[in-house]
């Protein structure tokens, strides 16, 4: 464990979070109109008064900041306009687990797939296999996520009826235990498949770094040592080519967070993506703000976890 590096990354992560929190504080106050409008504008008047008091919207900016930090730490992100009387925290608390489940499942399945196909394609760059895989990846990359989601839904749910048309679980089913798990997985198959279009990006990254890695001298050394093709491919080349992939997973995670807005909306999946979509069309600013804050936190945490993986994989990280 390289503690120094880790602490630096942790510090960096906290800084990013601080920036996200501060932006979240500033944006409603910099918007045209007033912060009162952004926080409480569409709430009933009686509630507006309470929100104004709770966030100190009639006080100085510093007092507001202190209150904002206190409230944020307490998990109080305000009241949702469109879902009043539900609080933003309540809405997000309901939605977040589903989104995390979806995004992480998609990532956990896609990254190894991209890895394996990238290795296969990169190993024999220019071959027919490579060309085939590249065409597949590029098509996936070039196809809009929402379109793929819609096709999947139409074909597998509406036409074939293999999967449900909506939701994260059978509504009001009362399922428990394994049955519930099965139900949730059954509902997640199509959204996860749609999010797996990111496979294309991972595969391309893996393939390209694989091609570069294969030019490295240590590959020649490994081959000269008499290592078998698979050993050279996986133990030497792919192991090194994996590093940029890990980095890109972090970067791409932000992309699939965006993609989840489409996918969740199309599959009526009760996650943050649907929440954001609804918040946008109903101008529910507090909810939107809360959702973005949560997404920044999730992204930062995921990137940090990936950093930990990177730390384990790359012994060169010293500083």
């Amino acid at each position, binding site marked *: 464990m390289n503690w120094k590096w880790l602490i630096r990354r942790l510090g960096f992560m906290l800084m990013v979070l601080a920036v996200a929190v501060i932006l979240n504080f500033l944006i409603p106050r910099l918007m045209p109109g007033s912060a009162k409008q952004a926080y409480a504008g569409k709430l009933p008047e009686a509630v507006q008064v309470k929100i104004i008091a709770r966030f100190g919207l009639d006080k100085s900016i510093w007092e507001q900041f202190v209150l904002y930090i206190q409230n944020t730490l307490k998990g109080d992100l305000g009241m949702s306009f469109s879902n009043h009387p539900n609080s933003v925290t309540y809405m997000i608390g309901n939605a977040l687990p589903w989104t995390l489940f979806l995004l992480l499942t998609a990532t956990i399945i896609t990254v190894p797939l991209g890895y394996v196909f990238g290795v296969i394609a990169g190993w024999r760059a220019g071959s027919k296999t490579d060309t085939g895989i590249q065409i597949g990846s590029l098509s996936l990359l070039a196809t809009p996520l929402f379109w793929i989601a819609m096709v999947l839904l139409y074909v597998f749910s509406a036409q074939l009826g293999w999967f449900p048309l909506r939701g994260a679980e059978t509504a009001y089913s009362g399922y428990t235990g394994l049955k519930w798990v099965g139900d949730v997985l059954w509902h997640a198959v199509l959204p996860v498949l749609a999010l797996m279009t990111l496979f294309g990006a991972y595969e391309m990254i893996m393939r390209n770094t694989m091609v570069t890695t294969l030019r490295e*001298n*240590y590959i020649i*050394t490994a*081959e*000269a040592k008499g290592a078998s093709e698979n050993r050279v491919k996986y133990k030497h080349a792919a*192991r090194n080519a994996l590093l940029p992939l890990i980095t890109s997973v972090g970067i791409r995670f932000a992309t699939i967070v965006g993609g989840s807005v489409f996918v969740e909306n199309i599959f009526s999946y009760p996650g943050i993506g649907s929440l954001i979509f609804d918040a946008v069309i109903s101008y529910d600013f507090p909810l939107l703000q809360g959702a973005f804050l949560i997404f920044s936190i999730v992204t930062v945490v995921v990137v940090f976890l990936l950093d930990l993986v990177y730390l384990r994989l*790359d*012994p060169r990280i010293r500083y």
Partner: protein
Amino acid sequence: MPILTVDDLRTHYFTEAGPVKAVDGVSFTLDKGESIGIAGESGCGKTTLAMSLMRLIKGGAVVGGKIHLGDISLLDMSINEFRKIRWERISLVSQAAMGALNPVYTVGSQIVEAIQLHWDMSKSEAWERTAHLLTLVKVDPVRGRSYPHELSGGMKQRIMIAMALACDPEIIIADEMTTALDVVTQAQVLKLLIDLQKRLDLSLIYISHELSVLGQACDKMIIMYAGKIVEMGPTAKIFGAPKHPYTQKLLGSLMDIHSDCVIPDSIPGKPPDLLNPPKGCRFWPRCTVGQVTCETQEPLLIEVEPGHYMACNCSDDKI
């Protein structure tokens, strides 16, 4: 009985413009305990020659000739069979400074890998042997647990040597081994290699563009130009009485720290394009003693003195 016989070896790279004849009819032999230095400008085919011996040509192929290791024809066996020969009988020391060691594994484990690939040895036995090998190259065995980036260039080069010795090979090919090392380190590593070669009675093929380094390390010298051997003979002869005009020019271009000659001569022009090499003597366009016949008449490698070969049409006039 020479341990290695190379007969009329031809290696071509395939480009869209046509085959690049990187090695074009090279023959030589290597005796047990003998060290041969192969010298020439970049692009003369010396590295391709080494890679051909290891059957590691990428983007090209050995298109003709024979390589015999003792009685076995290396080019006729399947690649899987040849993998067993690699490293166990012929190993390769390449430029450690240019990434010949895999950055994500400890150097010790890379040596262990080489041992275990060929010898049926337990991990702990292999580590013991690794420690022994490291001692042999005057590296503290503790360093086996280090990653390449934690070691200096000289140390990495020593470890490459140790790795090359892993399976007690008969032949070691050293490709530009000391290039990019500092002069003192280069001297130290070179000394070590010479010492080991003598002590372990190794057969060595040393490839370098630095003639003076080869002069120190090798019994025999091969001078290559544009894919062909132009002169071959005992080191003392090559340095003391070079016969081929190219060899003479090459030696003349070296900087001698103790000479008063301010700037050495250079060789005008540049090596030919191996896609379409000149018909006759390949050096003819740059040669100052060449005759008209050289343009069309290809010189043969002939023995001008016992053990001293040369390929020049004008040799009789010059001597």
